[in-house]
């Protein structure tokens, strides 16, 4: 394992080092010390490496990740794993707003709570939150799955396209065009698999499913007068 001191080396040097790991490299496990809440830690990685950040991270941690497995031992600021393509980002603490924003793939696991706009515009990413999520989560979500083991704030899934949302606790309110849908066997199976992969000890049977009513896809001539 290679230890990198972010405070001593500087953010750019650390990210360049992580981004330059080639397929032949034997160096595949990294520990980042003293992150001090810096932004853009472990961004733009594109290799099957393991990166552990020992402390709290700032904004956009693990952004654009491909293939790497990133663990943050602490809390994360705005936009953790934004636009992730593949791989995995795990946060042992809480995450701030817009966690997993516009993520295209991979798995984001937040052990604690995520605040507002979790999974905003998600495009295929899977997000599993051990705690609760704030308002406007999964806003304009297009694909992927959002699993919330706690409660969801106001306007969950506002203007949602096709993502599937699973919530175990209370939903403060559903956003425009988001509705509760029946849990069929295939949903129980996919949720159970997601919970197992995420390492969250919850029973899929305790969750309810929400998704798009698909009423906003097309312009309605009846609404012409509203424009």
């Amino acid at each position, binding site marked *: 394992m290679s230890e990198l001191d972010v405070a001593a080396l500087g953010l750019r040097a650390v990210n360049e080092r992580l981004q330059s790991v080639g397929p032949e490299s034997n160096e595949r496990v990294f520990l980042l010390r003293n992150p*001090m809440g810096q932004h853009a830690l472990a961004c733009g990685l594109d290799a099957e490496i393991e990166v552990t950040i020992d402390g709290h991270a700032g904004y956009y941690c693990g952004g654009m990740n491909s293939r790497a497995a990133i663990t943050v031992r602490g809390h994360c600021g705005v936009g953790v794993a934004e636009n992730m393509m593949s791989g995995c980002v795990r946060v042992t603490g809480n995450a701030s707003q817009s966690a997993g924003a516009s993520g295209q793939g991979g798995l984001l696991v937040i052990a604690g709570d995520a605040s*507002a706009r979790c999974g905003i515009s998600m495009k295929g990413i899977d997000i599993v939150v051990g705690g609760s999520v704030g308002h406007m989560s999964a806003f304009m979500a297009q694909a992927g799955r959002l699993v919330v083991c706690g409660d969801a704030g106001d306007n969950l899934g506002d203007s949602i396209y096709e993502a599937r949302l699973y919530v175990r606790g209370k939903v403060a309110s559903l956003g425009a065009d988001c509705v509760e849908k029946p849990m069929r066997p295939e949903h129980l199976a996919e949720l159970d698999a997601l919970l197992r992969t995420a390492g969250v000890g919850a029973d899929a049977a305790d969750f309810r499913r929400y998704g798009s009513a698909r009423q906003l896809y097309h312009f309605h001539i009846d609404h012409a007068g509203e424009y």
Partner: protein
Amino acid sequence: MCGIVGLFLKQPGLQSRLGEMLAPMLLAMSERGPDSAGFAVYRQGVAAGESKLTLFHAEAEFDWPTLIGELRQADFAARLVDHRASHSVLAVAGPADSAAQWLGRRHPEIECMSAGRTMEIYKEVGRPAEVVERFHLADFSGTHALGHTRMATESAVTTQGSHPFSTGADLCLVHNGSLSNYHRLRRDLTRQGIVFRTENDSEVAAGYLTARLRSGASLQQALQSSLAELDGFYTFAVGTADGFAVLRDPIACKPAVLAETADWVAMGSEYRALAGLPGVAAARIWEPEPGRVYGWSRGAA
């Protein structure tokens, strides 16, 4: 953008280190606000029956002793408490209002940054590092402090447009965000007798709190009603004589992080501002919920 920080000491043994702890917090927010910076410090009060005024004059060579002589001739029993760069702190006998009004009439070029018994406000245009250095922030001792780094979006970059804004005796406000209904609010508040010196939206928020507090509202009530009356984006930190409060608007686009240990409570726009505080590794750290007033005071701490 803009960055805000706040630090409230619960452990009296840390009071001599207040400025030393706040300075790196403010510097960590330089990228969020490179235009101007300012801070409010609550430190030792003046003698019984006295009030404190923090005054600003744009000229570095301004003759403060002569001003104090003029104040004495006008029976204000003024004395110099502290002088730092463009700012001087004066103590006057009796309430600050009459001395501030006298200054406003006789020396309109002097800006009254703050009035009260413990609070002092220092602010200037320039990079936060320059402002921290110019006022020797690290030297301050005190019980609590707020700071602000500004990236102006709504009005001119001037000392008067910098934060914190005084909202009454020993009360101040720092703001990250922008208000959209401040023109109407300023007209309404002006009619109620609130005086505005800049085109700044945050000054209107400060004026709104001043008006609510004057009409008898508690700080909690004033902040609660601002949720309904102030339209826009904001994270506010408000300093009071014995504590501070934090409020984020319900949409919560503007960030805030809170941290608390047995020794202190700290607030920052980002965790970076708190990362160097002593004992932060063991602190409880959380993001304040939208639309909820958080407050700490010496009595309740």
